[in-house]
């Protein structure tokens, strides 16, 4: 997805020095920038919660971990691989470091950021890190390819993916995609779109025009795309932080229609904590897993109750978003987590898991490919770790349900300041 558009531009300059990479490099870079910087993999996303509070039951089955054999860690060094750079999408983990929750749980946690080509589940399977954050379909696809990783806590309960369009396009549900130019990120981020299309009986090859989308939302703003893929917590806010040249004011939600895949009933599970399956039978490692999930839950509960403090923690950890954008993201992320599943945050729900797997195995993209060729084996998830972690967290007085959670209203400024 990296458009490395090398540009011509024969410069007949006499001086050899100038001729070298300098000018060529500059114009090349500028050219790349002009075409838009596309970057790969998981674009950080944002969306508003759709089916809030739908009661799911914890998934039964899954990998059996005998938690009574796990030993509590003491000062164990643990590495966590994120799926993107520091931002509020990962606030709970940064807060757990900052507030000493990991330390209290006997862990010394180092958080590792990702680049454009990092596959967290792959890094985890290689043994380079102890835990990783990844979307469920992506991790399961990697699992099918041989990386034996197991979902031990489903932190995000809802999908944050949206399809955003201007009001005049009249796209209020996925049915209205028909005949429209639909932007998508590709690289496995397009399956919710395809699932919605097939639910509505639309043929992705004929009934819509699918357009590869860049990281930014300029395609939507310039009218090349009718409805752009966006995460509630990021790209959607970017539109609201941009000025409408016609009015000279920021775009407002009133000017936009939003289709939420969660509301459409085709949302796929996103951020989860993944562990190395083989090592879960090791008492020390599964003890670390329990402690890690417990302290992470504490971190997320802290960010639910202190969104502004968490915004500051993430900024201090190196996020380059402006304060307004960061707080918006924090708030939207909270909406994806809280109120939590029956049993407490992180519990893997049967219905959501099955829906994700069904979409991953049953929905074909344009190449006729599905995310997974068959349903993943039972060892791809376990509720045993998170159940034990929740027990410990509750005993420590943490509100793991967030039943009374009410999202804040965040006002956005131009450029996300």
């Amino acid at each position: 997805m990296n458009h490395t558009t090398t540009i011509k531009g024969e410069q007949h300059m006499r001086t050899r020095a100038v001729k070298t990479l300098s000018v060529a490099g500059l114009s090349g870079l500028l050219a790349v920038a002009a075409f838009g910087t596309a970057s790969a993999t998981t674009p950080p996303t944002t969306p508003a919660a759709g089916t809030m509070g739908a009661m799911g039951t914890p998934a039964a089955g899954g990998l059996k971990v005998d938690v009574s054999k796990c030993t509590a860690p003491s000062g164990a060094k643990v590495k966590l691989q994120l799926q993107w750079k520091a931002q509020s999408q990962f606030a709970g983990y940064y807060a757990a470091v900052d507030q000493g929750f990991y330390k209290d749980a006997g862990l010394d946690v180092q958080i590792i950021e990702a680049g454009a080509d990092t596959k967290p589940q792959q890094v985890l399977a290689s043994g380079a890190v102890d835990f990783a954050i990844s979307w469920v379909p992506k991790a399961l696809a990697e699992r099918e390819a041989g990386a034996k990783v197991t979902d031990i806590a489903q932190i995000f309960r809802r999908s944050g993916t949206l399809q955003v369009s201007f009001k005049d396009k009249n796209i209020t549900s996925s049915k209205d995609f028909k005949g429209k130019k639909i932007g998508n990120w590709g690289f496995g981020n397009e399956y919710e779109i395809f699932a919605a299309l097939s639910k509505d009986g639309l043929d992705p090859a004929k009934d819509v025009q699918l357009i590869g989308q860049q990281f930014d939302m300029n395609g939507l703003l310039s009218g090349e795309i009718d409805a752009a893929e966006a995460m509630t917590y990021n790209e959607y806010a970017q539109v609201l932080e941009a000025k409408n040249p016609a009015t000279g004011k920021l775009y407002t939600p009133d000017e936009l229609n939003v289709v939420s895949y969660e509301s459409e009933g085709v949302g796929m599970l996103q951020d989860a904590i993944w562990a190395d399956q083989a090592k879960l039978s090791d008492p020390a490692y599964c003890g670390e897993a329990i402690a890690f999930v417990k302290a992470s839950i504490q971190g997320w509960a802290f960010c639910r109750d202190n969104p502004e403090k968490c915004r500051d923690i993430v900024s201090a950890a190196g996020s380059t978003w402006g304060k307004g954008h960061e707080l918006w993201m924090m708030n939207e992320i909270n909406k994806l987590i809280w109120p939590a599943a029956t049993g407490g945050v992180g519990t893997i729900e049967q219905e959501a898991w099955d829906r994700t797997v069904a979409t991953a195995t049953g929905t074909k993209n344009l190449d006729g490919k599905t995310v997974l060729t068959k349903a993943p084996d039972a060892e791809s998830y376990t509720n045993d770790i998170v159940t034990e972690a929740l027990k410990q967290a509750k005993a420590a007085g943490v509100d793991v349900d967030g039943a009374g959670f009410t999202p804040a209203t965040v006002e956005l400024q131009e450029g996300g300041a």
Partner: protein
Amino acid sequence: MTEAVTVKRSVRLRRALMYPLSFVLVACAWELYKWLGPPAGGKVLGMRLLARTNDRAMPHTWKMIERLAHPEVRGRSDAIWLVVSRATWYSFRVALAAFVIGVLLGLVLAVVMVRFKTAERALMPYLAISQTVPIIVLAPLLATLIININKGLVDTKWLPVMVLGVFLAFFPVAVSALKGLQSTNAASLELMDSYAAGWWKTLFKLRFPAAVPYLTPALRLAGASAVVGVVVGEISTGLRTGVGRLVLSYGQDATSDPPKLYTAVFGAAALGLVMSALVVALDKLLRRNLPPEPV
């Protein structure tokens, strides 16, 4: 005599002017295309080749310059030029290390290949193949490998990125140095033999000087490759503090702040410029004892 001096001075003046002028020319070309080109992009022979010229895709050059003076994010204290400069300085050091190691590695490989014909036949195909591996495949692989090797060690996050730079930089040097070291004619070699000069002495007194003309273009390539390897590696692995990371971050801000991305691009371009200036200096140093090129 005065004429010769004037000529020399005017050449120098022209050269000195060329540098800033080249920037102005690029800026003019940018603005010209922005003015004439299709705002929503265009197709050539059915392919989308023409870039969009609207303000979001191609902000005015003066907006980019203006952006340099403002903070990275409103409310932060450091102006963006400072942030970009710091990141560029960091990347420059990594790229320089990659260049130096890459050149040394290339030279060593070339010497080994000159010394042992078998080595040349054994290594050459692999060297060629090595350059066909896409860098975006290598970057995550290297990052993972190096985290594995360095368990418990200090901050070595820049290492995979530097290795990528080395990986791209050594190749042109190895190939050209080999060619250069082999370029000595039989008569000269026999002369060295008649002096009873050993292999090493022949290497340093005869082969290396003979290789210099072959080496200088290779050094330029290596300099460029080291920079590309480092910047792409930074984007790919997400290495914090580098200018590649800024390109990645600011690219995401392009929806509401298009000129911001270009400030990072300026940093990356400056990185290339400084590196090429260094290579030119190195080139001069190497050529100081060579007879002037025949006209």
